[in-house]
């Protein structure tokens, strides 16, 4: 089986700071995703990528940049951290990204706190 590794597990930043979250997968999946999970709001898609160097915006892309330089890695940058922001960022992958019944495989998350 494969695994999705997210680093760091915990991230503490200052207001206005640029912060980068990293995700690695060894499933050899084509598609990777970044979701934001807020308490009481479920999961919201920030960016996804269907192949190396591809980027697709999700519903929550404003305030974020993403990069997929290799098939196995997908990074997310918070361009300017918002004061008192707290959320969990989940990375996921799937085999293709185009079929509706695909399973998503998730990492364990990066917990962001902005002071």
């Amino acid at each position, binding site marked *: 089986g494969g695994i999705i590794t997210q680093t760091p597990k915990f991230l503490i930043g200052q207001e206005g700071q640029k912060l980068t979250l990293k995700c690695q997968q060894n499933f050899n999946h084509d598609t990777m*995703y970044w979701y934001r999970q807020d308490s009481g709001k479920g999961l919201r898609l920030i960016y996804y990528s269907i192949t190396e160097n591809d980027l697709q915006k999700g519903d929550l892309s404003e305030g974020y940049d993403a990069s997929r330089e290799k098939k196995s890695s997908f990074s997310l940058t918070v361009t300017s951290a918002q004061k008192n922001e707290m959320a969990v960022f989940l990375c996921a992958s799937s085999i293709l990204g*185009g079929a509706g019944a695909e399973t998503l495989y*998730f990492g364990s998350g990066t917990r962001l706190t902005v002071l």
Partner: protein
Amino acid sequence: AQSVTQPDARVTVSEGASLQLRCKYSYSGTPYLFWYVQYPRQGLQLLLKYYSGDPVVQGVNGFEAEFSKSNSSFHLRKASVHWSDSAVYFCVLSATGNTGKLIFGLGTTLQVQP
């Protein structure tokens, strides 16, 4: 508009009791539906999925779900819960066949009491 509603934010049951977690969806076509589970401090894991055929689908760890087009529902069931089933359960809809357009419910937190 497509949406997923999980009407119960929190459910508490006793160990060994039966369980039903409710999910209602809104979509005019034939949906792809999933249940994912999130254990504390972990990512989500697939429990089961439905996209055609028998409306009752079996999943891992004794979970099953029943799709009802007439009721626009996809309720999750388990005959006898264990304390280790305590987690957050998400109902998920894929309406367009595009995995980039998954719609997540807000989740139901299940607490199993010993």
